[in-house]
């Protein structure tokens, strides 16, 4: 770990507070991450010094804003190792990015009889847009199953059975927000390519956590949320291979996405502008680029190792020290997400009680109702770690869960 790690906790002012009389232990990072001062400053400084509308202006502030906005696109392209900045479309987040593909690509390219392949572990945001698309086009949904049991791993042995030539698009999550599974994205993309299917990777849980290289992965589209990777809420991006973006019709109409407009017909601007109708989320895009700098200063490989180390420690200690606990997801090679079930205690009660101890967890179905059903659970509690979490916070987690368990089961 390099020098940037030295004061990581101090980089996140929000962490330094008491919640219900205890120092905050923030373990809800899979829902959203906290923001370092540099990102908060980037946001504030933009509004303090540079704020103007982009693209259409000639004055100094507008040029400054435009420059910073397009520099953010270059930064994002570099962050993902895209071939060029034109492959980055700024969106409102993962959900928005997936809807963009499902609408702009899907409506044009799918017909009855085609198959949309998903996996059984998808977040509702990588599920419902495809259900809507299937309904619009008559295409069918199909699922790559998760193996039986609690590891939550994809059943890769089933891949040849479900990934047939009727599959036109295969959308899957890189990292599961419920089980912490890291899927073999490159392998899945290669398999899809063999049958001529495009791939959409949901990188909401991986973008700020693992090294990402879209060209090495071989995906066609990849969706990212800024707020889960130290960036602001309300911003994210879609990576798309340039030839695909160029061939797709627009998703929304408005200003900035046209090259010429007449009363009955318009011509579209080339991608990515074609997909960014209206005044974009300038401030948040600029702050997101700052978050990318922050993450790369720490090193994404180092962040991944830190996450995995904490998750492995939490997994082992909870199993050892909290009687009867059922932990979901694989024991090894996992992200920083640890979901569990305390026997006899509903997840909401776990989360309410943990909150009284200053420990922020999440309980519920984690936008993953079909998978919960398959696991025979209606909800789980989830602790999710990120770069600023510590081993001492795992002590607090363990002690809190022991207390809760005792309180409810006596």
């Amino acid at each position: 770990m390099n020098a940037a790690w030295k004061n990581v906790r101090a980089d996140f002012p929000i962490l330094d507070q008491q919640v219900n009389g205890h120092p905050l232990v923030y373990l809800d990072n899979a829902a959203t991450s906290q923001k370092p001062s540099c990102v908060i400053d980037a946001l504030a400084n933009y509004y303090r010094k540079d704020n103007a509308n982009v693209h259409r202006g000639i004055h100094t502030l507008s040029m400054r804003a435009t420059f910073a906005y397009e520099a953010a696109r270059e930064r994002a392209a570099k962050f993902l190792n895209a071939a060029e900045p034109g492959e980055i479309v700024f969106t409102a987040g993962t959900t928005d990015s997936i809807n963009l593909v499902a609408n702009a690509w899907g409506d044009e390219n799918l017909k009855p009889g085609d198959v949309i392949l998903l996996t059984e572990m998808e977040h509702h945001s990588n599920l419902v847009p495809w259900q809507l698309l299937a309904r619009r086009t008559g295409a069918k949904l199909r699922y790559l199953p998760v193996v039986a049991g609690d590891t939550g791993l994809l059943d890769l042995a089933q891949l040849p059975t479900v990934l047939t030539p009727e599959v036109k698009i295969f959308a899957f999550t890189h990292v599961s927000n419920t089980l912490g599974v890291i899927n073999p994205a490159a392998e899945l993309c290669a398999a899809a390519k063999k049958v001529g299917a495009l791939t959409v990777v949901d990188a909401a849980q991986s973008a700020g956590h693992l090294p990402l290289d879209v060209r090495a992965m071989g995906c066609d589209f990849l969706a990212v949320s800024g707020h889960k990777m130290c960036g602001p809420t309300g911003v994210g991006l879609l990576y798309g291979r340039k030839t695909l973006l160029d061939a797709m019709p627009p998703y929304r109409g408005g200003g900035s996405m046209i090259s010429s407009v007449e009363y009955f017909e318009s011509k579209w601007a080339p991608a990515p502008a074609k997909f960014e109708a209206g005044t974009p989320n300038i401030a948040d895009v600029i702050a997101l680029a700052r978050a990318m700098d922050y993450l790369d200063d720490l090193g994404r490989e180092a962040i991944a190792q830190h996450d995995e180390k904490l998750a492995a420690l939490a997994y082992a200690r909870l199993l050892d020290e909290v009687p009867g606990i059922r932990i979901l997801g694989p024991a090894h090679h996992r992200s920083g997400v640890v979901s569990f079930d305390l026997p006899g205690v509903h997840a909401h009660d776990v989360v309410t009680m943990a909150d009284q101890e200053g420990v922020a967890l999440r309980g519920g179905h984690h936008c993953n109702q079909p998978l919960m059903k398959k696991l025979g659970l209606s909800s789980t509690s989830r602790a999710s770690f990120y770069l600023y979490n510590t081993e001492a916070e795992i002590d607090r987690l363990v002690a809190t869960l022991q207390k809760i368990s005792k309180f409810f089961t006596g």
Partner: protein
Amino acid sequence: MQDLTDLYQSVILDHNRRPRNYSVLPTANRVGSGNNPMCGDQMTVYVRLEGDRIADISFQGSGCAISKASTSLMTINLKGKTIAEAEAIYAGIHQLVTTGQVAEDDMSDLAALAGVHQFPARIKCATLGWHAALNAAKGEATPATTEKPSD
């Protein structure tokens, strides 16, 4: 300062561990279900209505201690009541869990739900089963959901 034993009073813990009237009611002529789409909690309430009186009532489902205990306490308190009486009791419960104020002097063990008002995120848990029961009793076919302004 909130205290957990305010929320999880011994009555609540007891009803969570041993929910009363927790079964399918074979003689039910009304069924209501309530679900909370935010968390996946689900309660089904079975009612045998005789005229406008709740002759018998039971429930099943999955939910947290608050929703389970509240529904369990509800079945005890609504058995034998008319729909109008049940609605009046629910109005008192709603006031109790949103403000902590007891509407009537004698709420019996329902008063154990008073702590809920300190935990706004949990109010919907406490009202889930009641919505399902009132929907069932009033013969509304649509499932109750917590995502209603009336919460």
